[in-house]
Structures are given as C-alpha cells and as structure tokens.
C-alpha cells in the first residue's frame, strides 16, 4: 500500500499543482495518518499504468516534474504513517484506477483547493465552479468540448462527474448540494 502510494505521489502532485500552492502541509495531512480519513489519498498497485498515462498525456498541459522537496515531504509523511499504530484502509479501493484518479482530482479541488480559494480569492466555490476546475484537471483528451449551457458552462461535464461521484456517493447525497446558477442543468 505504501509503495503504491509512493509511486502514485506524482499523480497526486500533478493533480494538485494548479490548486495547492503550499504542498508541504498537504502531504503531511493527507499521507501521515494524522487525519482519520487519510486513507482516501492512497493509490492502489493497479493504478500505476493509469497514473503514468495521465502524466504522459501532454495535451493536458502538465508541466514540470514533481520537485524533490515534494518527494521528501511525501516520503516523510509516509514514514510517519508507518510509525503510527493506526492503519487506515483506502475506502476508495473498490474503484477502477480511472475512477479513483478522477475522484482524487475531485478531493483536491473540492477539499484542499477549496480552502485555498476561500483564503486567497474570497471565492466560496459553488458546485458548478468546482466542476469546471475538476474538468480542467481530468480532461482526458486535447479536444476541448464546449458546454451547451452558457450559464453554468459545465453541462458537458455533468455526465462524467455524476458517473464518478455515484461510485462513491448516493444520488440523494448529491441532490442536496446547492446549485447556484440559474440554469436547469442540475435541477428539476
């Protein structure tokens, strides 16, 4: 489990690089076992190919390599986790590698990135805004698909977002998220 996560760290880093400017605290929080829900951030052995394909997909515009400092921080957090007595299993282990990658991207946008935007941009981050960020993170081809809805601008992403979320959440959970745009893309 540890080794697969260590190998997968560049995948996490690529997903996070545009959304989390200060990553040191993030590695510690996500991987050290300090958070009781830290298991969410762990990759599985079978994810390697999917992560590699994601990183190699240059049409995403991913730049640079995972800095040595991030490697150190990630490894230190994993060591701290190994020293701890509690082992948190990954609640996302039932997902396919592709879906897990998409869901980790969602966690980064909606949980960690959301905090950054709240602090530095005074942006509360409505669901359609988060979905737009998420779409940018996980776009699987260079082809830019446009939203049919000019209000929310994410109607083209809703199917894939919903498909990913429903692997983890119940439909009624998702229905309770406020939808701020005036369009009907997510509403009755």
């Amino acid at each position, binding site marked *: 489990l540890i080794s697969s996560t260590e190998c997968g760290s560049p995948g996490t880093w690529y997903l996070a690089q545009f959304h989390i400017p200060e990553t040191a605290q993030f590695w510690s929080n996500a991987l050290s076992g300090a958070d009781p829900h830290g298991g969410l951030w762990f990759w599985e052995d079978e994810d390697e190919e999917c992560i590699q394909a994601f990183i190699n997909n240059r049409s995403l515009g991913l730049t640079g390599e995972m800095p040595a400092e991030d490697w150190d921080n990630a490894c230190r957090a994993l060591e701290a986790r190994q020293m701890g007595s509690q082992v948190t299993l990954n609640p996302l282990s039932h997902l396919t590698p592709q879906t897990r990658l998409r869901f980790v991207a969602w966690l980064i946008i909606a*949980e960690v990135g959301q905090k950054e935007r709240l602090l530095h941009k005074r942006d509360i981050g409505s669901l359609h805004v988060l979905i737009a960020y998420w779409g940018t993170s996980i776009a699987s081809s260079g082809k830019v698909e446009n939203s049919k809805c000019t209000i929310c601008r994410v109607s083209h992403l809703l*199917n894939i977002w919903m498909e990913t979320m429903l*692997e983890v959440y119940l439909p009624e959970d998702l229905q*309770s998220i406020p939808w701020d745009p005036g369009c009907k893309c*997510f509403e*009755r």
Partner: protein
Amino acid sequence: MFRKVSLVSVPPLDEVHRFPRHLVALAAGLSRATRAPPERDSGALRVLFELIVPPWPLILWVVFRSVVNNRIEPLQTFLDLLCDTDQDIFAWDNADVFLLYRNLLKDGQLGIYPRDWNRYMVDIDFRTWLQIRNMTRTVPDRPRRGPDDLKIRLAAASLIFSPEICASTLQNILAPLHLSLDCHPFVTITQVANPNYMEQTTLGNLDSEEFWASTNLRNQLSVRSQNLSHTLWCTPLRMSILERVQYMHLALTVLPQVSTFSRVSK
C-alpha cells in the same frame, strides 16, 4: 419568523434538486452497483458536508449540542428554536461566511471544519442541512451591530440555548473559531444573565478613606456596570434576547470603564 420545520416533514423532495432525466437514468444504473454507502463520518462525505453546511448555522448547532447534551430530540428542539427565535440570530450572509471561514482556516487540518465538530455536523442529514441553509441565508447582506456583531449574536444564541452558560465555556466550545469571547464585556454579560446572579450592593461610607481607595472605586464602578447590565437583561420591556444582549454590550462598552477611571484617578 422562519417557516416552521418539523423533522417529520423533512425532507420534502421538492426542496432538493431533481436530476434531469438523463442523469436520473445514470444514477439508477450506477446505484445498482454492489457497494456500501459511505459512512456518515467518512472523509468522502465530509467534502459534501462542507459544500452544503454553512458555517454560521453549524457553529450554532455545535454550541447547542455542546450545552444541551442530555436533551431528548435535540435536532427538533434546535429546529423549533430556529423557527421561533429572533431571525437575526440565525441569519447569515456571504460576508459572515468569509469572516468565519477565514478564522476557521487558520488551523492547517484537511477540510474546512474542525474535526471535533464533525460528529455534530453529521448528526443532521444533507436534506435538513439544505433546508436550514435555505431558511437562514440572507440576500442582500444583513445589517450589523458594529465590530462585535458576531460575538453579540453568539452570546445571545448561547444564552437562549443555556441561560447558565459562562463565557469561558463558550470560548472552549468555539476555540477553533479563534474569537475572543472570554473577555470584556462578554464575561459580564454571561455572568449577569445567569439566573442565579444576585445584584451586589454598592453602598459605602463616603466619608471613609477606604471608600476612596482606587481598588474600592474600581470595584464600585464594576459592580454598578454589572447591576446596570442585569437591569437591562431583566427589563420587562418587550425586547428579544438579542436586543437585550446588544444593549448590555452597549452599556458595558460605552459607559466609563474601570480602565478609564484608573487613568483619571492616578
């Protein structure tokens, strides 16, 4: 007053979103997958909670649950209070959200809300939170009572939940919020609002030297301020608890204070 909410009637489906037809079909197909729904306190659900639950009602719920531990059906009691109490206490706007988030995010944990609050947050389901959110959100921005507006509303809400609450207890409950509540004038406000508070006498012998000693004069001034606040708290005039706390705050901060007097007496 807010529209009455009963747990029996929560959640009416028309209060939440209905997915468009193609998304409903997608949900139906995928929910057939053999998997257990996530635990209420799971990290994955925490992300959704933080998208749905606004900070101000959550803070009030945390205070409520912390001080009324043994009450039966706490959620229904809380919803009744939400509907019957001064709307100003529960109302929030975007400016409140940013202020509260800014304070909460000072701690470097994953997620927005403190871990200790999660157990209370997950006591309420998503749909009820959505309903609370819709009932209490104020657009456009609400009027404010000066820089201590949030503290005044917190003190008033806490006194409604538990008249015997003291400022230090409130401070401990809300430590992750990084607001100073166990200080002047909130210590005095919660002291004199306590049902067991007894007004103190300020009588003294004006001819004695002891009376004019600076320590005694400070004490006299302090006692008079407390008694005045207590009078405001108990006034038979038709005022809400929030208004009473507001006037007590005004009296305690505008009238000459012990520190002012100390400077003059030197």
